[in-house]
């Protein structure tokens, strides 16, 4: 563990923090019992993936990927991961919308959002 951490000279620190964020989200999705809370954890997890991709695209001393005229050899950031992540953000908001609709429907019938209570009700 220590050897792993010491290998991060700062160059990979952002990847490490993205991994931490991902696992916080995963933990929340697995452990929290309230469905709305699970959804927030899901969003955290999705943002973690976006953070990872954006970290791949950054170039030190670089500029945003918008062309500056009359300046040769500018170190632009990589536009491809940015474009991909725009799609990923849309996917995450879509998933959240559908999940919330399911959530409201569940609540309308069972009057609870707690996972264990719901499972008990379903077995009745």
């Amino acid at each position, binding site marked *: 563990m220590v050897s*792993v951490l010491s290998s991060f000279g700062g160059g990979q620190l952002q*990847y490490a923090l993205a991994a931490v964020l991902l696992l916080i989200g995963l933990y929340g999705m697995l452990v929290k019992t309230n469905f709305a809370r699970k959804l927030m954890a899901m969003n955290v997890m999705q943002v973690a993936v976006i953070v990872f991709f954006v970290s791949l695209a950054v170039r030190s001393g670089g500029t945003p*990927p918008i062309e500056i005229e009359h300046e040769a050899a500018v170190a*632009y950031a990589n536009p491809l991961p940015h474009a991909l992540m725009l799609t990923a953000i*849309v996917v995450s908001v879509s998933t959240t*919308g559908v999940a919330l609709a399911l959530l409201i429907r569940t609540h309308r019938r069972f009057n609870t959002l707690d996972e264990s209570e719901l499972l008990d009700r379903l077995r009745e």
Partner: protein
Amino acid sequence: MIGRLTVLLLIPALVVLLQAAAELPAVGDGTSPAFTHVAPYYLEHAHEETGAPNFVTAVLADYRGYDTFGELTVIFTAGLACLLILGTRDEPSRPRDEETP
């Protein structure tokens, strides 16, 4: 109880992810494969080929326009999904649970 078990499972996952991350090119490294293979083509040709100085727009709307079509379809799907699941006010989704004909 479940919480502790999950943490026990997640810590090795974290170690593995960190180990893998340590092998990736450093953040900001302009010589990594991500910067040397496909991306330079966009940076060199996007403006003249697509007329868009914003490279992200060039990639999003032109080179990978089909992904954007897919993205729009995803959000369209989400809209219809909410409509089907919750129904509208004048026509709440049918209570087809216990008394299905």
